[in-house]
């Protein structure tokens, strides 16, 4: 079967849709670049199968084409690249010669429509390959330029008082109040009838590429700069005026334009548009072959890559049926889109966990850290000085984050927490206090008999920077009832995080799997976070761990490294609205956490200068803390640049690894 032939507009305005093709968005196709009018002709000749075409040309040939939804090159207001350079005010162009280049069909039609219906005259239009020169040399009174040529000309004549510049998209917007669609993506109907799945594939690839393009504006600007030679700021402003979807009101603007074109006699009839059915819409041969609800692994992953949300059931299916590498490929692709550059770098934070108390009355079965209230032998409450000493050690090695984490000590109320946060912030203003999980917050609220909101408001006022996501385990109450009956329930956990987000405190999200939950319950956990994130958006990162059961009351089989890679990938695929995903070395070991950076994780987490809770399981399968230097080396060994970040994911330092010591 011959490869699909895809037409791509050679102007920079098409880059946000096209640039990702072949790279961020794989597609087996022969890509042909040309001006819109060249592509129109190639489609007509059957030399292309799928292509971007002028909107106007599409209207003319709609009977032979299928419109691909969700894609266009449009202008919401001014477009800056469809310009009429005129020696006279528009109204006075009546009866004079206007030249246009032969590069598109939409804009000459638009020019005609504007002249006829807005300015009430029928223009005298000539095609000329040197339209602008005609105006400069006085051979014409106005020239219509489009694309990169228009952008360049505007700069060239920026100071020329004698030359008026009209932006046609602005004219259209002023007149109709609607945006203007210049180009749309279409497939030849004959080709679609024969190869519906290939058209669908190309459509999906274009959507994926577009999504990548919109998420990576700097990459688009780089390419545009290289191609056009225009200054970056000009380009930035240019792209900001363009949109690439095809929803309302873009579609409305397009249809109105077709109406006027018909009125002007440019179209014989109002086009009957056939749109490529989207997976959820009307049945097409391809859609019925792969209904999304019970879809194949391939279709679920394709959906995820096209920006669709993977359901709990689909997540379960992926867990059980997808090839590990298929999952990993999709996850690392999604990771790269969420975190541009994550294929070349990985971040880590220099932090310290400080366990201020181990006294706790919550008695979770999976915990080996707590001591009961009244345990005078092993129970402790650290003094402020002890806490300060530990933070001073952290600061000495360039650390930026402290995580206070403790038991639910019935002696400690809001005043204790306010005081310790305030004193830490006063003494170490450079340190970010990322502290107090939901269950600790809830505990404070109970002890001090104040609302969660008041707890968080007061802690924030005292200087708390953000909240860790600990204590989530599995956010499904059946599981929580079984393993930690006295601990925060799901709704309560989210109440704390929601309230924090509402108050402007960011937080992280976590999971401990391997507690006897089902795979469906793991996916429900991810879905619960995702739903909350849609509402409040305050989760910065997600951190999954596998459960270590030694020295706890729960004996559970150890989860495998293979399962961890699968989970990392699935977390990345499911959590479409949480930016960062951490690989953990405490339970998985440094070697596997290195590998996790290739399976969807973009962050190596913290060096955890002091970690007592997981270590209390006394599992000989745990790994001793990594030092800052080790974290740098471990990341560098994966071929990525180690970047020290702070809690806000801002760069603290880019480390250059000593590659001499990296064993390749």
């Amino acid at each position, binding site marked *: 079967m011959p490869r699909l032939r895809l037409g791509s507009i050679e102007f920079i305005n098409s880059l946000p849709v096209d640039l990702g093709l072949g790279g961020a968005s794989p597609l087996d196709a022969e890509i042909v670049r040309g001006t819109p009018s060249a592509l129109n002709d190639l489609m007509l000749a059957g030399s292309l199968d799928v292509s971007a075409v002028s909107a106007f040309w599409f209207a003319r040939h709609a009977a032979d084409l299928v419109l691909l939804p969700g894609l266009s090159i449009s202008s919401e207001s001014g477009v800056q690249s469809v310009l009429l350079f005129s020696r006279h005010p528009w109204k006075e162009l009546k009866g004079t010669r206007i030249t246009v280049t032969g590069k598109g069909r939409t804009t000459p039609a638009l020019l005609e429509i504007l002249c006829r219906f807005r300015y009430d005259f029928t223009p005298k239009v000539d095609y000329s390959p040197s339209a602008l020169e005609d105006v400069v040399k006085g051979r014409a009174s106005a020239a219509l330029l489009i694309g990169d040529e228009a952008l360049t000309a505007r700069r060239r004549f920026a100071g020329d008082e004698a030359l008026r510049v009209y932006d046609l998209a602005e004219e259209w917007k002023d007149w109709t109040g609607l945006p203007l669609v210049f180009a749309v993506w279409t497939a030849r109907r004959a080709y679609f009838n024969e190869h519906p799945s290939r058209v669908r594939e190309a459509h999906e690839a274009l959507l994926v590429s577009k999504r990548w393009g919109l998420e990576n504006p700097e990459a688009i600007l780089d390419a545009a700069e290289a191609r056009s030679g225009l200054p970056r700021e000009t380009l930035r402003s240019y792209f900001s005026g363009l949109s690439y979807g095809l929803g309302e009101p873009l579609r409305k603007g397009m249809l109105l334009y077709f109406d006027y074109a018909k009125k002007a006699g440019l179209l014989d009839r109002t086009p009957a548009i056939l749109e490529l059915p989207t997976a959820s819409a009307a049945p097409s041969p391809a859609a019925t072959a792969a209904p999304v609800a019970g879809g194949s692994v391939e279709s679920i992953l394709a959906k995820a890559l096209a920006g669709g949300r993977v359901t709990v059931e689909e997540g379960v299916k992926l867990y059980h049926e997808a090839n590990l590498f*298929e999952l990993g490929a999709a996850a690392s692709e999604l990771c790269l889109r969420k975190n541009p550059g994550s294929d070349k770098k990985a971040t880590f934070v220099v932090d310290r966990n400080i366990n201020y108390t181990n006294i706790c009355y919550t008695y979770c079965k999976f915990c080996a850290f707590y001591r009961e209230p009244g345990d005078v032998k092993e129970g402790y409450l650290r003094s402020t000085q002890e806490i300060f000493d530990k933070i001073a050690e952290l600061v000495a090695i360039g650390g930026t984050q402290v995580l206070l984490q403790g038991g639910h000590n019935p002696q400690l109320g809001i005043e204790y927490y306010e005081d310790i946060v305030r004193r830490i912030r006063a003494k170490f203003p450079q340190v970010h206090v990322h502290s107090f999980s939901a269950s600790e917050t809830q505990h404070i609220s109970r002890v001090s008999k104040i609302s969660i909101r008041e707890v968080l408001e007061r802690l924030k006022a005292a200087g708390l920077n953000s909240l860790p996501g600990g204590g989530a385990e599995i956010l499904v109450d059946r599981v929580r009832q079984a393993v930690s009956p006295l601990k925060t329930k799901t709704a309560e956990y989210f109440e704390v995080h929601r309230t924090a987000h509402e108050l402007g405190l960011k937080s992280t999200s976590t999971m401990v799997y391997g507690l006897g939950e089902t795979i469906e319950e793991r996916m429900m956990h991810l879905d619960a976070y995702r739903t909350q994130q849609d509402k409040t958006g305050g989760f910065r990162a997600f951190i999954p761990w596998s459960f270590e059961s030694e020295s706890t009351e729960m004996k559970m089989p150890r989860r495998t490294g293979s399962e961890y890679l699968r989970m990392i990938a699935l977390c990345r695929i499911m959590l479409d609205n949480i930016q960062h995903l951490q690989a953990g070395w405490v339970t998985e070991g440094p070697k596997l956490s290195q590998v996790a950076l290739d399976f969807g994780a973009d962050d190596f987490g913290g060096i955890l200068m002091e970690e007592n809770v997981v270590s209390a399981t006394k599992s000989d399968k745990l790994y001793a803390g990594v030092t800052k230097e080790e974290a740098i080396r471990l990341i560098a060994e994966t071929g990525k640049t180690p970047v020290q970040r702070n809690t806000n994911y801002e760069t603290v330092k880019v480390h250059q690894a000593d590659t001499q010591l990296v064993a390749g």
Partner: protein
Amino acid sequence: MNFIREFKDIFEKVKAGTRLSREDGERLIRSKNLIELGAMADYVRRRMHGQKAHFTHSINVNHTNVCVLTCKFCAWAKGKRDHDGYVLAADEVERRVREAAGHGVWEVHIVGGLHADLRMDYYEEMLRRIKKACPGVLIQGFTAVELDFYARLEKITVEEVIDRLIAAGLGGVPGGGAEIFAERPRKLICESKIDADRWLAVHRAVHRAGLRSNATMLYGHLETPEERVDHLIRLREAQDETGGYLAFVPLAFQPENNDLSYLPRTSGVTDLQVLATSRLMLDNFPHIRQLWNYVDEKLIHAALDFGVDDLGGTNYDETIAKAAGSQEKGFTYDELVAMIRACGREPVEVNSTYTPIRKELLVAS
């Protein structure tokens, strides 16, 4: 597998069963594209072995730690005059094997230093005693380096050494001592050891005598990625000639207590990269083995996804990797079986010739 892009051409070859070239190997070993490497290696592993993961229930006997060589990566060997050098008497070896066989162990793996005072009769006696005590136990012993040393010591051919040891009960030869074949790094890490040609020649002799053997590669020290590929290609060519190799066993360099301690441990990425590349390049080796005592436990699980079909032995009493800082604590038989099952594989217990043994024959009454 439509996500395979960087190695699309190589994957076409893999699917068609076409041999990969040196250039292909160099691209693979230099790539950080673990996803594609792993996917291809996993594809090959599935095609060859389905869901089976092999292991042996074995005891390691390191009969002496005294060695005339001074390999820089070795943290275990002692000189003859060191107070902590030892030699196990045949009685002690027999006792250990008998005890292990009583626990269902059916393979003995014998590897030791090059001790100038131990002669052929010592080895023949050791093998005879083991076979007499436990006739069903397979003895896999003596690396090519040791066999070559005995021949030179006795001033006989290596063929004769091999014949005599077979007559005494030897059932297979391990893959140790290969280290890295390329002369440049080999000189740097183990100058006094036999060279690549000699190592390969000894294995050729082993195969001609009717025994099967394995081959190792020590990586993560001073070798280049290209030199790893060179090692694989020399093995592939040797295997074309005799067909006597069963498992390829890559060994991650362990950097503690030795002359190369300034080097870091290998990364998880490198370990998996080497395994996957080995599976893809060594199209004529039936098995790729990952020893549990050379990498983190969770990485072993992942190794099973990167081309590995064999986890080696339970190897209790192993001392060599431990001396160089291996932090892994080892598995009991049940733990190894449970781990393989947890990884979704079917545990298949074999000996080093990959044939089952009737357990009732293990210990002589």
